[in-house]
Structure formats: structure tokens, C-alpha cells
């Protein structure tokens, strides 16, 4: 009802107007309908026909498999003293696919990354060459210092693709004391990756490069796991879809006793200093089991330098050091054994029937064989003696004659029986074999043309071989196993550094048990003659090692000193000072070999060192073997 001033009007009805479709409105409507159809058609194409393909692309976008690196096994001494820890650290990672696509910006960023990682531009390039997955963060540098990590962290927002990742680096707790034993891990280089890649190693992983880290790589390295994660557009993990937990590496309990190791190290260093010698090594083994209880090579190095990838400068410094600190003399240093070889000469002669315990020979100041005269160390006649007395007096002329009776091939055979000329089966890489020479060997290594008379074995080679010169070479480890075999009644054992292996839960997977390499083919009564000689070295008034008593030796056992000349032939040559021993005399539980390079007479330089750590062992043996 409305009122327009003309009276009241009543609304009757509304008339629906007729639609007026102009041509243009119709055209527009048709166009709108057409466009809608085009959109729907396009959606059918995208979502139905190409849908599966785009779904896959979407997965590539969002789901990434992240490797979970297994924690490396920890190494302990035999009583559980931890020798290495996996220290949490920051690693600077780079995801190359996230770098700026602009070349200049990319170069600028890489230059800054190199600076943050304290790498040269070339080193970074070499490192990145190993990056096989552009979509996965690749560790450019692990073990950043706190300052480096902090600096990097501040720069992260302006460096796309660069992330800091929590990782673990190996930290060796007593680097100088254990560096040769434990060795170190280091980043895999391109060449190593070729062989390690198929075994499941990641290109930015570390791998044992030296020492037990390398020798026990398969034990220490766990099994890597993985995680399929959903990430958002910024690469942040939103959700873990599936996961395979890594299995950490196994824990290794070494046969080494830390206390004994330290004692051996300290006394060796003191002895070297006193003797004015720059290098030496000592190996202590258990003659009942073959377990190595201490093993020191001096000089040593800091293996922590290697754990995060050593700098070129540090590495050159170590390589150029004339004392060769990286060289593990205990297992790889091959030295003429000198008089310590005489038990082998004696064993060969006794066993081959060339002499008996009662064969008496003179010990003159010198002897002439062929055109050459060979002197005894004493330069005067020590009188008549049997083999039992020839060992403690260390009469050279006695053994010249014996060696001449036995011949080089038989001596070499017995030397091999005692472990010479074969790499001991220890868990360390790089152990040397030493040499048990024969005429054939001389011919083989002869630097002169074939047929030269200088390449033929001569009697001089034979007689000097009898006193551990000539071409005979042995490492301290071989010598220690040889001393152990003399002590334990002729059983050559395989040396081992591993006392026990446990899994992550502490379950013992492997416990060391003695492995016999061979029973040395020397009759017990003959061996006993040699052992008696070694015993008298310590106890007899005339023994070369009788000095032990004045050094306060608390124990009882057998030993042999050695003073091996090197650097040519003749007199007044420099000499390597040896001392090998076992203790106690009955049922020995200790055997060792010690060498001091260029340190004069074994009894004056090597023996005091051994006596001190033997005393340490004697005082602590219950402790050392507790829990065996």
C-alpha cells in the first residue's frame, strides 16, 4: 500500500518482465560459458590425465630420504677407560640445489661458504665434487669450532642452501699416548668413495684412515639408517613418515691397559731423552694369550688434528718432520735385531743337531772367515763356553761359528718359525713382516746386475746373520711375539689388540681367545737351554743384563739385549739398542720388546726402560688382569 497523495493505492500484482536478450548479451553469455568449459577441460587434463605424474612430482617436492648416520663405536681400554668419544659438533652443510641460480650470486655465496668453513676455494670445490645428491645437505666441514659455528649461524639467513647440522666428531682423549694405536678417522676422498660408496658409505662420511680406526672399521662403523621426511617449501621437516633407526657401531675393549701404556710411554720417553735418541718403540704382550697390553711408538702425533680433516699445513708439517711422527715404529719399523736373534741361531743349531747343550766353543776376540775378520763386541777372549753361557755373555764369535755350522737356510727357517718374515695378524693396518733372509732373498733384492758376484751369498752373510745382522730385520711387535714364544714354551701366538667387542646394549659379542700361529718345532729341552741362557742374562754375574739388579728389578725372568749396528759395515757404527724379555721365568705372563733408535748399547739404554715398566707391571699385575 502506498500513498502518493492521490489517494491510497493497493498493490495488485507484480508482472515478471520478459527477458530481453540482446545479441551482445547473448554473445557475452556464450563466451562466459565457453571459457568455463575451457577451464573444466583443462582441469580434466591436469587432474585426471596428468594427475599421477603431478602427484609424483609433488612427492619429489616433499618427501626426502634423510640418511641417519650411525654413531661410531667407542673404544675403551681393557678396563673400560674410554679412549675416544663421539663429541657433538656442528657441521656446515650445503644443499647445492638451493644455491642461487644466478652465477654471480652463487660464486659469491660459495666464496663465503669457503671462508666460513676455513677452506680454500679450491679445497671447497674438490669437496663439493663428491656431492652426489644436490637435494641432500652435504657436509662441507664438520667439527666447526664454537666461534666458526656462531659466525656461520649469524650468516645463515643470507646464505640459501647453507645449514648447520648437529653431528658427532671423534675426539681422542689422550692423543699422544694412543695416537698410533687408535689412528684416526677422516673424510672419505674421491678415490676411496669409489670403493666405499657401493658399501653404503655417504660421500660426506668419515672413515677410519689409520690405526685401529682403520683396522676395525667394519666393527666400529654401525649400520646407517634413514628417515623419510615430509618437508615444507623451505626444506623444514614437518613430519617423519617412515624411519629405519641406525644401528650404532660396536664398542671395542682393547687388550691395552691404560696404566701400563702410560708407564711404558713415560719410561720410554725418559729413556730416549737420557740416551739422546729421537725415536723408539715398545711392545708388551701377554705370552699366554697374545694380547697386546701396551704398545708405544715415539715420537707420536695428535690424532685429533685429523678427525675433522687435517689442514694441508698441519699435514705437511707432520710429513716433513725428520723424526717421522706418523710412522708407527712398533709395527712397521724394521730393524736388524742384533744379538736378540741369537736364540734363533741357537735353536736352529740345537734342533738341527749341530751343537748340543754341552758343546764347548771358544769365544775369541775375533775370527776370520774367508777373506774377512769378524770381531767380538768384547775385543778380548771370553774363554770357553756352551750355548747357555754364550747367551748371557752375548759372545758374538761363538755364534759366528754356530751360524757357520747351521747355514743361512736353516737359520731363516727357524726365524720364520718364530714369526720373522710374516706380517703378524694384528688388527692394525700397515704392520711390516721383517726379513728372514736366505741366499735366494739376497739375489732377489740385490741392486746389482744379475750374475754380479756381489749378489751371491757369502760366508760373511752367514756368520753375521748368526748375530742378527746381515739382512735380518724385525719389528718390535715381531720381537715381542718371539720373546713371548720363548717364554711360553714355544707357542707362537697371533697378536691381538681386541679384548672384547660388545654391542650397544653391552652384550658381549666377541671375547678374545688365544690363537696359536704355530708350535715352534724346537724340542722342549733345547728351548729350555735357550730360556736358561736368557735367565742367566739377568741373574748371572757375567750377564749382559745383570745391570737390571742395580736398576732395582723386582722380578724374575729371561731377557736378551741387542746392539744392532746399522748404516753399513765396519766398526764404530751407530747402533739400535734392543731389549727383549719375558717374566717371570716360570709360566711367564709378560713379554716385551723395546728398541731405542741410534742409542748405543741395549743394556745401557733399552734395558733400563724395560726394567722400569716391568716393575710397573709387577706391582700392578693383579689390577691389570682383574676382570679378565
Amino acid at each position, binding site marked *: 500500500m502506498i500513498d502518493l497523495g492521490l489517494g491510497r493505492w493497493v498493490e495488485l500484482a507484480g508482472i515478471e518482465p520478459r527477458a530481453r536478450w540482446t545479441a551482445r548479451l547473448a554473445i557475452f553469455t556464450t563466451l562466459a560459458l565457453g571459457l568455463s568449459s575451457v577451464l573444466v577441460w583443462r582441469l580434466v587434463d*591436469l587432474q585426471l590425465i596428468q594427475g599421477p605424474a*603431478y602427484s609424483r612430482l609433488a612427492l619429489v617436492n616433499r618427501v626426502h630420504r634423510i640418511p641417519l648416520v650411525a654413531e661410531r663405536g667407542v673404544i675403551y681400554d681393557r678396563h673400560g677407560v674410554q679412549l675416544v668419544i663421539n663429541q657433538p659438533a656442528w657441521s656446515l652443510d650445503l644443499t647445492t640445489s638451493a644455491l642461487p641460480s644466478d652465477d654471480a650470486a652463487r660464486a659469491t655465496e660459495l666464496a663465503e661458504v669457503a671462508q666460513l668453513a676455513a677452506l680454500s676455494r679450491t679445497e671447497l670445490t674438490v669437496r663439493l665434487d663428491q656431492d652426489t645428491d644436490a637435494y641432500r645437505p652435504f657436509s662441507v666441514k664438520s667439527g666447526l669450532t664454537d666461534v666458526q659455528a656462531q659466525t656461520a649461524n649469524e650468516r645463515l639467513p643470507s646464505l640459501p642452501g647453507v645449514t648447520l647440522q648437529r653431528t658427532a666428531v671423534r675426539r681422542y682423549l689422550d692423543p699422544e699416548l694412543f695416537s698410533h694405536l687408535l689412528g684416526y678417522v677422516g673424510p672419505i676422498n674421491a678415490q676411496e668413495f669409489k670403493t666405499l660408496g657401493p658399501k653404503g658409505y655417504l660421500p660426506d662420511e668419515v672413515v677410519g684412515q689409520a690405526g685401529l680406526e682403520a683396522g676395525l672399521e667394519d666393527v666400529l662403523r654401525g649400520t646407517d639408517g634413514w628417515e623419510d621426511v615430509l618437508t615444507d617449501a623451505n626444506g623444514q621437516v614437518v613430519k617423519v613418515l617412515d624411519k629405519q633407526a641406525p644401528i650404532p657401531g660396536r664398542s671395542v675393549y682393547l687388550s691395552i691397559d691404560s696404566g701400563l701404556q702410560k708407564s711404558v710411554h713415560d719410561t720410554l720417553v725418559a729413556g730416549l731423552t737420557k740416551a739422546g735418541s729421537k725415536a723408539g718403540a715398545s711392545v708388551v704382550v701377554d705370552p699366554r694369550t697374545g694380547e697386546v697390553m701396551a704398545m708405544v711408538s715415539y715420537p707420536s702425533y695428535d690424532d685429533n688434528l685429523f678427525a675433522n680433516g687435517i689442514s694441508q699445513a698441519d699435514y705437511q708439517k707432520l710429513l716433513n718432520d725428520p723424526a717421522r711422527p706418523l710412522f708407527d715404529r712398533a709395527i712397521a719399523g724394521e730393524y736388524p735385531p742384533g744379538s736378540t736373534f741369537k736364540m734363533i741361531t741357537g735353536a736352529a743349531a740345537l734342533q738341527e743337531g749341530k751343537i748340543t747343550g754341552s758343546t764347548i766353543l771358544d769365544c775369541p776376540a775375533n775370527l776370520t772367515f774367508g777373506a774377512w775378520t769378524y770381531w767380538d763386541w768384547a775385543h778380548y777372549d771370553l774363554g770357553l763356553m756352551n750355548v747357555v753361557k754364550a747367551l748371557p755373555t752375548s759372545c758374538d764369535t761363538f755364534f759366528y761359528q754356530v751360524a757357520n755350522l747351521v747355514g743361512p737356510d736353516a737359520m731363516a727357517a727357524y726365524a720364520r718359525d718364530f714369526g720373522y718374515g710374516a706380517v703378524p695378524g694384528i688388527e692394525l693396518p700397515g704392520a711390516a713382516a721383517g726379513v728372514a733372509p736366505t741366499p735366494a732373498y739376497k739375489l732377489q733384492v740385490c741392486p746389482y746386475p744379475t750374475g754380479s758376484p756381489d749378489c751371491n751369498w757369502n760366508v760373511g752373510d752367514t756368520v753375521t746373520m748368526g748375530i742378527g745382522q746381515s739382512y735380518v730385520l724385525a719389528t718390535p711387535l715381531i720381537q715381542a711375539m718371539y720373546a713371548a714364544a720363548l717364554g711360553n714354551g714355544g707357542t707362537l701366538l697371533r697378536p691381538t689388540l681386541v679384548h672384547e667387542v660388545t654391542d650397544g646394549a653391552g652384550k658381549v659379542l666377541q671375547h678374545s681367545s688365544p690363537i696359536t700361529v704355530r708350535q715352534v718345532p724346537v724340542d722342549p729341552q733345547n728351548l729350555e737351554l735357550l730360556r736358561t741362557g736368557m735367565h742367566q742374562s739377568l741373574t748371572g754375574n757375567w750377564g749382559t743384563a745383570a745391570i737390571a739388579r742395580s736398576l732395582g728389578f723386582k722380578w724374575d725372568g729371561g731377557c736378551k739385549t741387542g746392539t744392532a749396528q746399522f748404516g753399513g759395515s765396519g766398526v764404530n757404527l751407530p747402533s739400535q739398542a734392543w731389549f727383549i724379555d719375558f717374566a717371570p721365568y716360570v709360566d711367564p705372563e709378560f713379554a716385551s720388546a723395546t728398541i731405542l733408535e741410534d742409542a748405543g748399547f741395549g743394556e745401557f739404554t733399552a734395558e733400563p726402560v724395560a726394567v722400569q715398566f716391568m716393575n710397573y707391571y709387577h706391582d700392578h699385575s693383579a689390577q691389570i688382569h682383574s676382570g679378565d
Partner: protein
Amino acid sequence: MLLVLGLMTVFSASTADFRRQLLSLVLAVGAYALAAAVDYRRLERLILPAYGFCLLLLLAVHFAGNAALGAQRWISIAGFPLEPSELSKVIMLLVLARHFAVRPGRERELRTVVEAIALAVPPLVLILTQPDLGTAMVFAALLAGMLFLGGSSRLHLVGLGAICAIAAPILPHLLHGYQKQRLEIFLNPMSDPLGAGYNLLQARIAVGSGGLLGHGWLHGLQGSLGFVPERATDFIFAVYAEQFGLIGSAVLIGVFTALMLRLCWSASVAPDRFGYLLCSGVAVMLCFQVVENIGMNVGLTPIAGIPLPLISYGGSALVANLAALGAVQSVMLRRRLLVYRQASDDAYLLNESGTVRLDPGLKSPLSA
């Protein structure tokens, strides 16, 4: 229904945006109701002042606006960010509708065409320099649509088309670097998948991975994990399509098409020319935006910053669009020819074109 879908999608894309969008929606529904209640014919008087006010706002944006994403588009009014270019679309629509409506019989004259262009150019330039290419494109489309539907002569239309065709080659020189890049990427999207083509590719992956049924509401990963850029605004369709699949997308496009048909029908039944132009103008404006927005989401049209009407996040656009739809509703509500009878007499009144005409000779239309 569109509004609900829009809200759901905005919600799935961003919860924070959702709350503000809900607030905007309340305002927008108010604007709709107001526009529908007011007789659209009364708007005619308000149009010129509104046009002036709109130009002032756009100028204000230039001098006092807030920059975002490399462009200055917003001004704050009482703490609410306002995007005048969105409102200016609707005002431009009204201006053009009035312009063509007040000249009955003169729509074919060249003068009308030139005046229409003259009216459109100032706001267009102001918007283009914000820069807001998307809205400027809507303006251009609106102008073209109104010229076409407003009844300009074929000769003039062809002439204008020719001028545009000649001017087209110089367009790239006027575009900003990123706008040129968008065009290049549109022509070859795979040329730089991690750089400039990233948005396009990711949006397409989102749409494609939706498949027939979609991942379900709130389960679109591309969208929720941030791979789809501008997921509450320009690329909201991709987020929607990922969640609801082909069926959902077809439904959405179907609803838009229905809306479009309804707008065209409204135009066809509008009781006067202004109403007709108003309805068809709204149809042109929404149609262009929908096609361009969905088109760019599925890689059919170049990327331009145009939101999906009624769906995308953005208060100003929602209010402006609903106000425009309200105006159409106002036309619809007044489309009927009302027949009155004087209580005492047998005379009839018709209301048409806003005037009440006494027509004593008229037979009852009901009996006719």
C-alpha cells in the same frame, strides 16, 4: 555457497587469515544487504562523488600507502588496511554503467566512447603505477565489456581493437621487469623451475596432484606446506583444487558459471538500461577475474595479481564484490512491473524506471 567454499579454503590455507576473512565477510554481507535494500536508481546521484572520492583514495595510496610485495596498494583506515583499487573496480563499473545509461540513443556516438575512455583512464593510470597490473587489466576488461554491451557501434569497437593491436608490441617496454618475466615464464614455464617459474609449476603440481577426488579438506600438502605461493590469495584455486580434486573444481566452476548466468539473466530482465548495464558490468568483471585467476592457476593465462572473487583472502575485494552483487540484487528486487489499483478508482499505476506513472487508460495487466 561460494562464500563457504572460499572460507573453507582460506581456512585451510591459513588460519590467521581465516579470522580476518570472517570479519570481512560480516562487513561484506552488510554491504550486500545495504546495496540490495537501496534502490539502485538512487545510486546514480552518488556515482560522480564516489568517483571523485575513489580518485582521492587512489592518490592517497600513492602518497601514504603501505608497500607490500613490491607494490603500494594499501592504506590504513582506522587500523583496517584498505585496498582502494578493489573498491575502485566497483565504482568504475557504476560510473561506466551510468555513463552509458544516461545517454539513451547516443550510445553509438564516438563521443560516448571517448568520454567513457576518458573516465576510465585516470584511475587506471593510478592503479597501473602502484603497480597493480591485475586490477588495471580488470579495468581494461570492464571498459571493453561495457563498450561492447553498452552498445557502441561496431566500427568504433573494431577501431579500438585495431589501436590496441598496434599498441600491443610496445606494451613489453612499459611493463616492469617482473611482469615481463611472468609473461616469458607463461610462454615457457619449465625454463626456470626453481626461479621465476616456481610459482607456476608448484601451483600446477598442486592442482594436478589433486586428481579426481582431491586429498580432502585440510589435507592438501602442497598448499599447507607452503609450496604453493600466495596460497590464500592469487593461488587459492590451486589450494582448493588440491584438496577437492577435479570434482570439487568442476563444482566450483559450475557454481561460478551459474552465478554468471544468473547475472546475465539479471541483465536481461533489468527494468531499465542502468540496471542492465550494472548487471552485465558485474558479470563482465567477475567473469574476467574468475577466468584469469583460475586460468593462471592451471597455466592457461599469464600470472597477474588477480584474486579469485569471493574465494580469495582479502577484505576489500570481498566487500566490493558483495556490494556489487548486492547492487545486482537491488536491480533484481525491482525488476517487476508493479500494478496498483486506486482503492476508489479503476486506474492503474505502473512503476518503471523509478517513476510512478498514472495510466488511467491501462487495462488491468492481470486480465490481459
